[in-house]
Each structure stands twice: as C-alpha cells, then as structure tokens.
C-alpha cells in the first residue's frame, strides 16, 4: 500500500511540477525535505529517550502494571488475547493515557514501545498482526480529552472562547475511533474466514 502511495506522490509531483512550471521548487523540496526528516528525528530523539527512561522506572516499580489494571476492562475488550500483566499491554495502556492527556510527544515513544512488544508475539515479523492494526488505528484516530495545541492556536488567533469546541471534539473523536476500530475488526474477521 505505502509503495503505491509513495511512488505515486513522487511521480505526480514531477509531472505537476513540469506542467505548472514549478519544477525548481520540486527540486528544492526533493533535496531539502530529507534534512527536515533528520531535524524531526533529532527532535524526537530527546523525547524518546526521556519517556523511555520514565517508562523503565514505571515498569521496574510496578506502576505500569497498576495503570494497565485500571484500563484493562476497556482495552481487554478491544485487543484480542492480550494478557493482563504482559509488557505489551502495559505499554498500550500508558500510550493511551498519554494520548488522553494531550501529550502527543510523550505518546509516540510509548506507542513505539508498545509496537516493539507486540512484535515479540508476532509469528511473521514482516506482517502486521490484528492487535497491531487495532493499536495503530487507535492512535491515528486521536483520542484526546484536551486538544492543547488546537486550543492554543485558537487563543492566539483571538478567539473569544478557545475551548468551546471541546464537546464537538470529544464526540467527533469517539465516533471516528468507533468507526475505525469497527472497520479494523471487520477486516480481521474477514481475513480469518478466508484462511
């Protein structure tokens, strides 16, 4: 899937660039964007190390086990066959917590830790498991209690009530997560039947 999207984007950019006479800008982007990728990974590196360290403390002190216990009734229903005390489960629970608190930068490394744990239970390391799909969808659908960045930008733009969008954001997130997870679950069920 990514193969087609990626090559499609590159090929189309060159065609459009030639047609619109912006081929110089395309060329600049082709050479310059990789630098931004390095910048972004450097930015991520600090956060990854920080939250990796914090996670380790939580793991060794038994705190992550406690937190995952609180979220088990909900998450156990979404994820298939994930054991309560497992490291994968703890990481998923922590990632969800960070997402809910609007700590996007903290959620990403926790999510990567969860993916690493899920990969350990994967019989075919090149193919995504059902639980990986559900977990990625949960993350792409953005469950947030406090959309900090959005509210800050609204305030900066002179909004009279930057938080008035909250009920809409909550409802929209819940609906989109539900639809995403349902489609993912249906896909998994179809896949199992075909085998």
């Amino acid at each position, binding site marked *: 899937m990514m193969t087609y999207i990626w090559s499609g984007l590159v090929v189309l950019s060159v065609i459009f660039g030639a047609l619109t006479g912006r081929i110089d800008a395309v060329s600049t982007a082709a050479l310059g964007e990789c630098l931004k990728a390095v910048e972004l990974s450097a930015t991520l590196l600090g956060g990854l190390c920080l939250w990796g360290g914090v996670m380790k403390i939580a793991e060794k002190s038994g705190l992550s086990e406690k937190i995952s216990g609180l979220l088990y009734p909900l998450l156990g229903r979404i994820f298939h066959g994930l054991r309560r005390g497992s490291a994968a489960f703890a990481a998923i629970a922590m990632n969800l917590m960070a997402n809910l608190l609007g700590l996007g930068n903290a959620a990403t490394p926790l999510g990567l830790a969860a993916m690493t744990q899920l990969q350990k239970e994967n019989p075919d390391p090149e193919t995504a498991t059902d639980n990986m799909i559900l977990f990625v969808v949960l993350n792409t659908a953005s469950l947030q209690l406090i959309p900090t960045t959005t509210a800050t930008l609204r305030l900066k*733009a002179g909004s009279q009530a930057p938080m008035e969008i909250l009920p809409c954001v909550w409802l*929209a997130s819940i609906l989109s997560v539900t639809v995403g997870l349902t489609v993912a679950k249906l896909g998994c069920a179809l896949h199992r039947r075909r085998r």
Partner: protein
Amino acid sequence: MTGYAVPCLLVGFILYGLYRGVPVFDCFVEGAGENMKVILKILPSLVALMTAVGMFKASGGLDLLTAGLAPLAELLGLPKQVLPLALLRPISGSGAMVIFQDILQNFGPDGTIGRVASVLMGSTETTFYTLALYYGAIGIKKTRHTLPSALSADMTGFVCSALLVHLLLGR
C-alpha cells in the same frame, strides 16, 4: 492547567519508584538507551515520506487536488476552505498546522469555517506519518487493512466535525 500535567507525571513516577526502592537514575538511563536505537530505525521511512510529501506540495499538486475535490467537500458538508486542511491532515502534522493557522487568520476562529477547522484539527491525527513511524520502527512491510481502517476513521472525523459544529454551535 495542562502546564502541570508533565511535571506532575514525572514527579509521580519518580516518587513511586523511590517508594518502591527502585534505583531510579540507573533505570532511567537504561530505558533511555533502549529507545535511542529506535530512532535509527525510524529515520529511513521519515526521509522517504517527507521527501515525497514535500515534493507534492511544492509541485502545486495539493492545490490542484483541492480544486478538483471541491464537489466532494460539498458532499461531505465541509466548507471548501477547510478541504486543504482535511487533505493534508492525515499526511503531515506540521503542514496541517500551517494551513490551520492560515484558516484562523483569514476566516476568524469563531466563525463556522474556523470552528469546523478547529474540531477537525482536534479530532484527527497524522495517519500516514503514524503508520510509517509505528510500522517502520519494527520492520513491518505488510500493513494489511490498517490504512483503510484508519482512513475510514479520518473520514468519519471530517464529516462529524462539520455536522457537530452545525448541530452544537450552529445558528
């Protein structure tokens, strides 16, 4: 309020660790070191993705796509000025942020367009980036039906943001 979230979280974790007799500093360094290796695995997919998206934006392809999809925007009930944001949102977080700010400045944060854009920003994520990052880090090549599922969630988010703004905040 949210200024307290991170510091309190950190203090809470460290205090609980100390209470349980965990050597917190050594633990922290160990965990940080493990995550350092992850970034090296991510960089290649980031370079690939950001290059392609950057080229597409520069070529004017995104503008063309927006113009071509204006009827679709009408169908979804989205103001057409919000469509570039909806298109870019799944692909690039920083790109979406730039367009979002632009919309707020041009149309005001408290009008219908500004509100729909805000709800859309708050309730969706950079799907392609998350996908590339999460799967790239652990070397998954076949993502199966992840993308269609994630995009269906995004699509629901788009439609709902327009609909909910009209229902809950509309005139």
